[in-house]
């Protein structure tokens, strides 16, 4: 048992690698600050475009969304970070990771938001139209406030996935939390830094997980 403890929960190793891991945590946070707002923004764009576009446009968009969702995010990440330089575009690694993961996660955010829009009964659209409200005003003031509320637990759940997705960045040598934990693991020949990284992810995500639990407990769909 003490051998297990020395291997996975070695306090000395954890203390020595904590500086490295905190630097990694900061990089992970920066990646999240690109991917989560970016994914929400582009996801909202996708959902609105599919709602407003004529049928053929909405259909081609949903094809594109499905293609991206079926594409492994790791491959997308490698293609963008290592492929763009061949086109003469060389974004800083953090930005490259941000772009790739935003593309991936925005399709999920988009589908969730579209479900939210579709969850509102057509009679709400009719009530708004009968008072002369236009499509955009109806979306903004009538449909989205209710629709987004209906899918808040799913949005929060996808945010959780998006944060964890940023750990893929370690594959393309971005010094994020997971990458730094692997580095520290190599330096100390000991996996305790990985456990420490997991604890840091837990600290980062625990409030979000609890929030989802609370949101899920409150049904907000209208009767």
């Amino acid at each position: 048992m003490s051998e297990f403890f020395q291997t996975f929960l070695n306090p000395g190793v954890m203390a020595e690698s904590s500086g490295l891991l905190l630097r990694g945590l900061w990089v992970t946070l920066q990646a999240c600050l690109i991917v989560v707002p970016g994914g929400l923004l582009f996801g909202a764009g996708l959902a609105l475009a599919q709602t407003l576009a004529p049928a053929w446009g909405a259909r081609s968009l949903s094809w594109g969304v499905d293609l991206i969702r079926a594409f492994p995010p790791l491959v997308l990440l490698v293609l963008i970070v290592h492929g763009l330089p061949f086109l003469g575009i060389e974004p800083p690694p953090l930005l490259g990771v941000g772009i790739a993961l935003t593309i991936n996660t925005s399709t999920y955010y988009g589908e969730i938001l579209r479900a939210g829009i579709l969850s509102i009964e057509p009679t709400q659209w009719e009530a708004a139209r009968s008072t002369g409200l236009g499509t955009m005003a109806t979306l903004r003031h009538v449909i989205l406030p209710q629709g987004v509320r209906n899918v808040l637990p799913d949005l929060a759940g996808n945010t959780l996935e998006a944060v964890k997705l940023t750990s893929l960045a370690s594959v393309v040598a971005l010094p994020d939390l997971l990458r730094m934990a692997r580095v520290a693991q190599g330096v100390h020949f000991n996996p305790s830094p990985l456990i420490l990284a997991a604890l840091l992810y837990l600290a980062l995500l625990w409030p979000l997980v609890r929030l989802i639990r609370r949101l899920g407990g409150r049904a907000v769909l209208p009767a």
Partner: protein
Amino acid sequence: MSDVLELRGVGKTFAGIPALRDIHLAVGASELVALIGPSGSGKSTLLRCCNRLTEPDAGDVVFEGEPVPAGGAELASVRRRMGMVFQAFNLYPHLNALENAALAPRRAAGLSQGEAETAAREALERVGLGDRTSAMPDELSGGQQQRVAIARALALRPRILLLDEPTSALDPELVGSVLRVIRSLREDGVAMLIATHEIAFAREAADRIAFLADGEILECGPPAEVLDRPRTERLQSFLSRL
């Protein structure tokens, strides 16, 4: 008396089945016209064709002397001046009574927030809910919700109200409060076209009653004439089953 709203030969077909056939009907300023008839006779479709929530296939709808535009800002402007009240209220559940009534004055008519709220408050007072402005729809009874829906339409100062069975979804004891509001609007000279199953109300409040069956107006005239001396067999049997 000039007509606020006039339907000229309006027709509508749903999947090959005619829902409205060659409807001719006019509503004059401060006139109340009641549409009666069995369920599925086309009363709702007729009302929805007036503001093009349902697109008629044939004929013209003329509002204040002009054909109702097919779309865009012109149609939106006509819809503002044609208030609509739905059977199931269709209030915005995330907004309180005042916000429900102030949304269109602010976002469709372009009034300032202050002006929109004043218009909404006046409309709520007119339907007897001046003291419930901050109540959410789910905190109100069905009758109160329907009165908020009427206020939402009134806040835009419409020339005519289209009411689609406004009391059919209400418990019997709540019907009276809504009908009282409609009567008081009639006394204020608001033109109304109302689909209803409340024959006693139609007899007493309507200037004219139109009887619809299978998408056609079979009889139209003053209540005493239509209800007491029905000419068609359809109307006779409809009235006898009430």
